[in-house]
């Protein structure tokens, strides 16, 4: 009798286990057949003149910045603190200053409907370090890496399709062109690199729902194979109140010669999106004199 009871318990246990396994397998199958959600985000974007330094052209004898979208350009999308991904530009055939930015993503924040999205051109990191001095051009590093433009839009959700209010991108820095001359004989300096700093010069910005700026100096260094006399730089000067800004330059010549100098940028030019040319920044070579005097203090 006792043996029969044990057999019965074992049989019941085995049946229970089989039932469990079947239940889990069914659940797995149900999960695997559920279709993935795809979200489509589309933004109608515009750039007006002085919003994006993309190319340099000459009009009436002066160099000006031409602005337009290029197919395939990227725009980073942030919702609150979260980086959602990149949109890709498709240029309007009739107006290159307009483009449709779009992407398809697998997931989207729950509170996306009505959310304010921050759009950052041309990448998801806002960093001015590492510039090489090349002139703005559609395929140049200055345009594709350092020519930041910003827009904010409001998202509207219909099923899995998200549209936004129009995005009007505003440029976030000036594009500068610098050339350097010696103070003594006014001759041009063959520059290998220069370091620029000022009271309000921004080196990078981070986003945690708000943009925060770090200030410091920026190095513009040509590749070894390059020997440009005029160097370009994207510089963001972030003043609390508008004023003239003095830029301090440390200039490293191609022959290891070293110079320093300053250039004041008038307040009226310090509107983001301007192209500012300073071809004759005066810098002086550092020299230490020999003195036939007993030193008051030796170093």
């Amino acid at each position, binding site marked *: 009798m006792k043996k029969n009871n044990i057999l019965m318990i074992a049989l019941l246990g085995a049946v229970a286990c089989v039932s469990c396994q079947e239940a889990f397998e069914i659940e797995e199958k149900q999960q695997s057949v559920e279709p993935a959600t795809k979200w489509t985000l589309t933004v109608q974007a515009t750039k007006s003149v002085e919003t994006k330094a993309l190319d340099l052209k000459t009009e009436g004898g002066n160099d000006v910045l031409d602005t337009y979208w290029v197919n395939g350009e990227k725009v980073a999308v942030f919702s609150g603190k979260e980086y959602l991904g990149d949109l890709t530009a498709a240029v309007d055939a009739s107006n290159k200053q307009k483009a449709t930015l779009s992407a398809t993503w697998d997931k989207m924040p729950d509170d996306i409907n009505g959310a304010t999205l921050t759009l950052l051109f041309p990448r998801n990191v806002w960093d001015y370090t590492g510039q090489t001095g090349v002139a703005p051009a559609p395929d140049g590093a200055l345009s594709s890496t350092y020519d930041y433009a910003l827009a904010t839009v409001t998202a509207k959700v219909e099923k899995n399709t998200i549209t936004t209010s129009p995005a009007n991108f505003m440029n976030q820095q000036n594009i500068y062109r610098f050339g350097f001359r010696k103070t003594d004989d006014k001759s041009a300096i063959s520059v290998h690199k220069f370091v620029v700093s000022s009271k309000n010069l921004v080196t990078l910005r981070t986003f945690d729902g708000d943009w925060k700026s770090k200030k410091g100096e920026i190095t513009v260094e040509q590749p070894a194979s390059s020997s440009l006399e005029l160097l370009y730089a994207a510089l963001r000067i972030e003043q609390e109140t508008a004023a003239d800004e003095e830029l*301090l330059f440390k200039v*490293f010549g191609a*022959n*290891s*010669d*070293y110079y*320093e100098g300053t250039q004041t940028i008038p307040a009226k030019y310090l509107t983001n999106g301007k192209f500012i040319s300073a071809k004759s920044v005066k810098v*002086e*070579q*550092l*020299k*230490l*004199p*020999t*003195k*036939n*005097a*007993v*030193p*008051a*203090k*030796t*170093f």
Partner: protein
Amino acid sequence: MKTKAIQILFSAALVFLFSAGHVQAAPVAIEGLELLNGYKLEAYAVNSYKIQSVDDWNALADYVAAGNTCEGLTFMMKGHIGSTSQPVTRMIGCQAKKGDKTSRKRFAGAFDGNGKTLTVDLTSADTNTGYCAPFAYVKALTIKDLHVAGKITASGQWASGLVGSSGNDANDGKCSIVNCHVSVTIISKYTSVKNSYANHGAFIGIAEGVATLENCWFDGSFQVEGNGDFYYSGGFIGLNKAQNTKFVNCLFNAVSCDVPAANAGQFANSVNGSIDKASTYYYVTPFGTKTQGTWAFTTEPIGFKTTTMTLADGKEYLVAVGKVSVDLPVHAASLLNRERYWTTFYTAYQSFKLSAGVLAFTMDETGALFVVGNGNIVPAGCAVVLMAEPSVVKKGTITLRTTGENATPAVGNVLKGSDTEESVSSGTAYVLGVDEKGEIGFCLAGSSVPANKAYIVKQ
């Protein structure tokens, strides 16, 4: 009866002991070694012969050149051989033509310098005559307690202050060099071409068999004449093809070795050969481009942790056991209307890396400053001015960190430096400072300049 037996045994024991003592005390007939043409070396023990003059050395050279290896024989110097005015000019060992190993006449005896000096003036005839060395060709040789002085003038490859070729291949026996001191000047007149490099070394030209060097030191010079060089050479071994070549407490302390020495090794230029990892070897003077061994200093160096050791020459040195960063005091002064912090620096021993905000400059005769490389490296042996932004100065100092990186300074640097305080014997020395107005510049230094600082001298 018992007493008589004891007496007999005692007597027998006495006879035995007496006999034994008598055999030991008996003189052994040791004979001198007859060389060529009846020339004889005096023996001092069985199979052991005295080298007492230049004539003895030359006769031995003739004997080996005739094909006698001297294997199993020992030769001991009983006095100094040669002098500056009458140096030894013959090498022991030879070969018929370059590259013909089968024609080599090699010395395979043992050589005991007995603490004496062999003064040589050896010259190789032409570029095809290599292995210019007192012992040009040897096999399974032991040399000990020998000091070699004088001059080696090499028109060919593989010159050395002691041994030219230490073996033909890895099957040759061990070449052992113990307690030897080489202070010759090796003058290279040989111009390296691709795959035929100078390969000179202070102790061995080419090591092919097993080689060990123990308690040996070099304090001679490497020099060049014409387009000569020391490419692919070694401080001790010019071309090391032997496996696990071992250095035990060896020291490279050249009086001068500032010669063209691309791809040369501090101790050995190894090609298909290797240095035993347990080697203990030290250098006071850096040589070549391949660092080997441990740096030893005569004065406390900047940037190193050291310990005091007695090395092969019996002198005490400060031997490097690690590297340390250096905190340099800097001083504020204004230039071009901006206040910066300044100092100067020099050391021959070690390159340093600077933190961001500090620049290293050389200076030309007009006082113009030139950045060294990217400005963030102070190369060993380059006197520099250092300029720091105020934001990077901590407690009045900047930190220099040791580095293996290097940078090429601009030509025409007038800044000089020394690792020791130096007196200025000629001209007027200037050091960086401020005058009474607080203006920065190079001001009068007085009769001496401090260690590890840059200075200029004007005539």
